[in-house]
C-alpha cells in the first residue's frame, strides 16, 4: 500500500505557485512521467464469489508467504490478479478454480466448522496434502489435486512477476528480474 500512500500524499500537496511555473515549451516531443493503472487504484473483484475470493487469498498466503521481508503473495496482490485473470480465462480454467476453492472451503467447514480462510495455519496446510504427491506429467485425476497444482503454479508466478517483488529485488540489491524485450503490434 506504500505506493497509494505516496499518491495520496502527492495529491494533497498544494499546486505549484504561479511564480514557480516554468515557461511552456513549444517542443512537441514531450515525455511525461506516467504510472500504470494498477499502480494507482485498488483492483475490483471480477469473477470469484466473496467466499471463493477469501479462500484464494488464504491459499495464496500459504503457498507463497512473505519470508524475511521479501514480498509474498499478499504483498504481490496475487489473489486479486488471479481473480482478474480468471474472469478472462476459458471456461474449463474457471471451473477448475471454482470447484477447487469451493471444495477446500466445504472440507474446512466439515472438518473444523470454519471457512478455509478462518482456519489455523496447521489445519489449512493439512488440506493441501495433495501437493505432497510426487510430480507426474499427467494432470492429477482428483479435481482438488488438479486445482491445487494449477493454483500453486499460478500463485508463485503471479507473485514472482509482481511489481512488489521487482521493487524488493532492487531495494535489496538483488538481480533485477522480469525485464525483457517487448514487441509492439507490428502493422
Amino acid at each position: 500500500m506504500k505506493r497509494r500512500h505516496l499518491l495520496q500524499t502527492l495529491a494533497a500537496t498544494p499546486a505549484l505557485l504561479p511564480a514557480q511555473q516554468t515557461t511552456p515549451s513549444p517542443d512537441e516531443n514531450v515525455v511525461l512521467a506516467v504510472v500504470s493503472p494498477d499502480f494507482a487504484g485498488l483492483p475490483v473483484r471480477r469473477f470469484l464469489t466473496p467466499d471463493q475470493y477469501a479462500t484464494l487469498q488464504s491459499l495464496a498466503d500459504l503457498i507463497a508467504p512473505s519470508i524475511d521481508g521479501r514480498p509474498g503473495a499478499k504483498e504481490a496482490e496475487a489473489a486479486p490478479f488471479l481473480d482478474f485473470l480468471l474472469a478472462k480465462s476459458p471456461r474449463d480454467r474457471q471451473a477448475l478454480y471454482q470447484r477447487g476453492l469451493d471444495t477446500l472451503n466445504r472440507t474446512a467447514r466439515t472438518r473444523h466448522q470454519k471457512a478455509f480462510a478462518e482456519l489455523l495455519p496447521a489445519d489449512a496446510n493439512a488440506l493441501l496434502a495433495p501437493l505432497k504427491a510426487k510430480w507426474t506429467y499427467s494432470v492429477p485425476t482428483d479435481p482438488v489435486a488438479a486445482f491445487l497444482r494449477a493454483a500453486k503454479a499460478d500463485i508463485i508466478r503471479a507473485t514472482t512477476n509482481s511489481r512488489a517483488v521487482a521493487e524488493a529485488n532492487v531495494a535489496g540489491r538483488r538481480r533485477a528480474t522480469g525485464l525483457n524485450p517487448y514487441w509492439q503490434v507490428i502493422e
Partner: protein
Amino acid sequence: MPTFNHDVVIIGSGASGGMAAYILAQAGVKCLMLEAGPMVDFTRHRSLKAVYDLPFRGFGEPGRFPHITQASEFDANLWIDEKKNPYSHPENDPYYWVRIRLLGGKTLRWGRASWRLSDYEFKGKDHDGWGENWPLSLADLAPFYDRVEPLFRVSGRNEGWAQLPDGKLLADESTESLSMERFLASAKKLGVPTTKPRRATGTLASSVNLLLPAAQATGNLTIVPNAIVREIGIDPKTGLVNAVHYIDRRSKREYTVPTKTLFLGASTLESTRLLLNSRSRQYPTGLANSSGVLGHYLFDQFYVKNSVTALVPEARGGKGPRNLMGGAGYVPRFTNLKPGKPEKNYLRGWAWDFGSGGTPSPELFPQWGDELARTMADAQGAGFSMTTMGESLPRFEHKLTIHPTLRDEWGIPAPHLEQRYTDNEHNMAKDAMETGVAMCEGAGFEVLAAHSQMVPPGESIHELGTCRMGADPKKSVLNSFNQAHDVKNLFVLDGSAFPSGGAQNPTLTILALTVRASEYLLEQKKQGKL
C-alpha cells in the same frame, strides 16, 4: 503501372524464400518476393519492459493462443493471430500449428540448431525397409551444406560420425563444466555418443540480416510485404505456372502478377495449402497433384520437453566450485544404426538436447510455503535437464486437406490437419526417458522428474512433408531439385518437400536444398530449358 520485369516470383521470405533470393538475385535473376506479413523494425517495434508492467503480468492474454505455447506476453505480437488464421484438426487429435507471418518468417525466432541429415535419412528405406528414400544422397547435398554453414556461422564440433555428418563449422573448443564432464563420462560408459551443440551464431541469424540485404543490394530483388497469396494460376495451353494471385493483407484488395517461374517457400503447410487451393481443369485436386500424394505424409519431429529433470547434488545451496555448472550438449541418434532388423522395439531413433544449470520449476517439488522457498533457494542453479527429439514416421493417412467451409480473414479456404503419434514414436520416447534417467543416475545426479509424454504434433515447429520429393512421379510431387514433376516452372522449397526427417532440426537442410534448387534453375535457364 508495375513493369513486371521479374523472372521469378518467390513466395515467402523465411529460410527457403530468403535463400532463393540470395542465390538468384546475385546471379542476375530479377526476383519479386511476396511475403504475407509486414516488415519488422527492430528499433521501433521492440523495447525493454518489466513483466509487472504487462497487462497480464506475464501470463499472456488468456485464450489468445490456443496452440502456440511458445508465445509469451512479451513476444505475443510476433506470432500469427489464430482467430484471423484458423485451421482445424480432429477433436481428439490436437495439432499445434505454430506460425509467424512477418518478413523473415520463422527465421526471426528459430532455435538455430543446425545439423546435417545423413544417409540414414536420405536412404532410410535401404537401411530398414520403411517408407521411401530421398531421390538424393548426402554426397549430392554435402557441397551445399558446405556453403550454408559458413553463411549462418554455425559453430559446433565435428565427430566423424556417419549419422551426424561433419560440417564446415566454427570450432567449438569450449571446456566442459565439472557436472557436464560427469554426465559425458556416464554417457560414454553406457555407449551413448555426445557432442557440442551445433548452432547458427550471431545476435540475429535470420534471412532478414543474412540473406535479404545481399540480395537486395544487387538491385534484382523487389520485396512486397503484406501480400497474401490466394492462388497460383496456370496457362491451360502449357500447363505451366503463369500468374500469382494475391491479396493486400490490410485493404483486402486483390492483385495478379505474371511470372515465368515460381519458387514457393511459404512454409511447409502454407505451401501445400496454396497448391491444394490452386485447382484447375488440368489439376482438379490441386496444382501438381497428378500423383495424388499432395497433402499426404505429414510428419514432424516429436518433442518430449524436459523428459528428465535432475539436480546436481554438489551444486545445492550454491556450494559447488565455480566451474561445476553450465554448458550444453547433444546426443545424436545412436539406436538402430546397424542394417537389418531393428535392435529396439521401434524403427529409427531419437536425439537429445541437454543442459547444465538453471533452477527446476517449483512445480516439481512436492512442497509449498516456507519449505518450498528453502528448497528453491537450495536448488538455485543446480538443475540439469534433457529434451528428447525423435523421428516420427511419415504415413499416408497423416495429412493436410482443405476444410470444406472454414475460411481465413481473407476468405481463403483453411487447412484441416491430421497427425497422431503411433506406438513407434511412443516406444522411442519411453526408451529415451529410461536411458536419460540411467545417464543422470550414472553421473550421480538426483532425478527429480522423468516422463515420456510428447507435446502434440506440430508443437516442435518442425512440421514436414505433404509435398514430398521422390524419384517416382507416381509417388511424389517433386523431383530431387524441388521441381514439380508435373509443372516444370514450379519449385517448392520448404520443409514440405521432405520425404523423411530424422531427428535433426530441419532448417539447415531446407537452406541447402534451396541453394541446390536455385542453382539448378540457373543451369536450366542457361540451357534454355526454363
